[in-house]
């Protein structure tokens, strides 16, 4: 509503083509400090493509991305990670043969103290295990052993691992692509709880979801993606769920929405 908000991330005119398919067709994007921004849209609307561009997983063909007002150019997810952006991808990005703990700490391993850690660079497996147990308990997901390989987990348990990882290490922005899709009612609520906690720490969260009740429960603003573009950004406190869905599916032109619905 007020435009005085500080923009943490911003993107202008992103284009991404795959052969004949245009996944992003000039998409704009704005994420404000400390907010939970939901991104919704039909299947194939380009939501995942958008956040992949923001997290360095793909390089857009055209368009600009800004972080804290600075123009940036992420060539790989490493760059995004350095900038403190953590992402939980839709296809989860876990190493199936590795254990839950290893996956949680992949690329962010903790070393022992003293000689063993500094010189021999030995991992502190015990500490990582403890933290992993703690994180998974937070999500109330009944996993029996943290040294199970991820490939032996149920679909929802696997998703919890990926979500917990993204939430645990972010310094700047958290991006979650359909984090509750495979989760049960209880576990889904736990993830919403986790998202709120992250926001309360002051980190903005980008949440892609098809679950409208979740979106309306938690989002501060809703970015509606349609056909590779941003159709509009709406305010969940002033717009109805059915209007939102109508815009999302193309049944209603966003230009016809009353101004107070937009955000």
């Amino acid at each position, binding site marked *: 509503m007020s435009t005085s908000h500080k923009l943490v991330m911003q993107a202008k005119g992103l284009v991404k083509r795959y052969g004949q398919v245009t996944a992003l067709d000039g998409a704009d994007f704005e994420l404000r400090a400390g907010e939970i921004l939901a991104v919704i849209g039909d299947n194939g609307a380009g939501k995942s493509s958008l956040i992949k561009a923001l997290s360095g*997983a793909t390089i857009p063909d055209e368009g600009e991305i800004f972080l804290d007002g600075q123009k940036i150019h992420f060539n*790989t*997810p*490493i760059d*995004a*990670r*350095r900038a403190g952006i953590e*992402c939980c*991808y839709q296809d*989860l*990005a*876990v*190493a*199936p*043969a*590795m254990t839950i703990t*290893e996956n949680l700490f*992949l*690329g962010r*391993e903790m*070393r022992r103290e003293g000689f063993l850690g500094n010189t*021999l*660079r*030995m*991992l502190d*497996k015990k500490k990582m*295990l403890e933290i992993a147990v703690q994180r998974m308990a937070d999500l109330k997901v009944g996993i029996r052993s943290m040294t199970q390989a991820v490939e032996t987990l149920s679909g929802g348990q696997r998703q919890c691992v990926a979500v917990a*990882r993204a939430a645990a290490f972010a310094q700047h922005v958290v991006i979650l692509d359909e984090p509750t899709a495979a989760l049960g009612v209880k576990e889904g609520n736990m993830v919403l709880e986790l998202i709120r906690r992250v926001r309360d720490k002051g980190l903005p969260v980008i949440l892609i979801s098809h679950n409208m009740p979740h979106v309306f429960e938690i989002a501060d603003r809703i970015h509606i993606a349609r056909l590779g573009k941003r159709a509009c950004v709406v305010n969940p406190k002033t717009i109805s769920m059915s209007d939102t869905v109508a815009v999302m599916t193309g049944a209603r032109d966003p230009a016809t929405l009353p101004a107070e619905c937009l955000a």
Partner: protein
Amino acid sequence: MSSFKDRLPPISQMGPFIALAIACAVFGMTTDNFFTGANFALILQQVMVVGVIAIGQTLVILTAGIDLSCGMVMALGSIVMTKFAVEMGMPAPLAILCGIGVTAGFGLINGLLVTRIKLPSFIVTLGTMNIAFAITQLYSEAQTVSNLPPFMTALGGTFDIAGTPISYGTILMILLYLGAWFWLRETASGRHVYAVGNSPEATRLVGIPTDRVLLGVYVLAGVFYGIASLLLVARTEVGDPNAGQTENLDAITAVVLGGTSLFGGRGMILGSLIGAIVVGVLRNGLTLMGVSSVYQVLITGILVIIAVTVDQLSRKGAR
């Protein structure tokens, strides 16, 4: 949380040991001299070259690659270090470093082609295998290099433990295995090797520089081949341009027998040591049994299949 039982490798990783035990039992029963300390010490000496190559090969295979160049690169390394020392009069330690530098350089080339141009490792290393072979032949003029400085062959020396002569090279091999095992198991960069092999895309997406991990693995493998060159030189006391012709298949066999998956990301380094020893035990035991050479080939073929079958069935039993 970490009882003794937890620390034992799961039964699914004990297969190579079972195969080794069976092979030993058969040879122990059919020959007189198999079960002696001296014979085991000998087998370890015989496998040390392939054993050390297999460390490098395991690393590459864990990343879902394969390195066909290992044997030829090792041969080139041994020619370089011996010729530098004997013909250019370079001090032995420096010559050795040069040899290892060359093998590491080949690793670097393999790694760059795999990571920068994204070529399949099979084709890259097939190419560098041919290149290393040709350079070896050209540079050595197909001549054996002898009269090596003693420093270069020191690792071939032995010391006695309870009357059994143990070679320093064997000890080095075992230390290298322990080092590689520690690295792969206890450090972040070691775990990343598994991660890259298991799911390169996931590893990239969590922000691990997969290309750097891969490049490191190929260079490190090259270093191991260089150490194998030194062991070969120490063992044979010459630089032999004909070396390395069968070592690549032997090393890959050791790795696969040791339970590492050719699809990457799964396996354990100590299995490769066992695999290398199995290969050595077969050759030794069959000679001791007096099996003639064609039949040796036949029986080796059959035993290799039996070994992995036993392994596989023991895993099924464990499930």
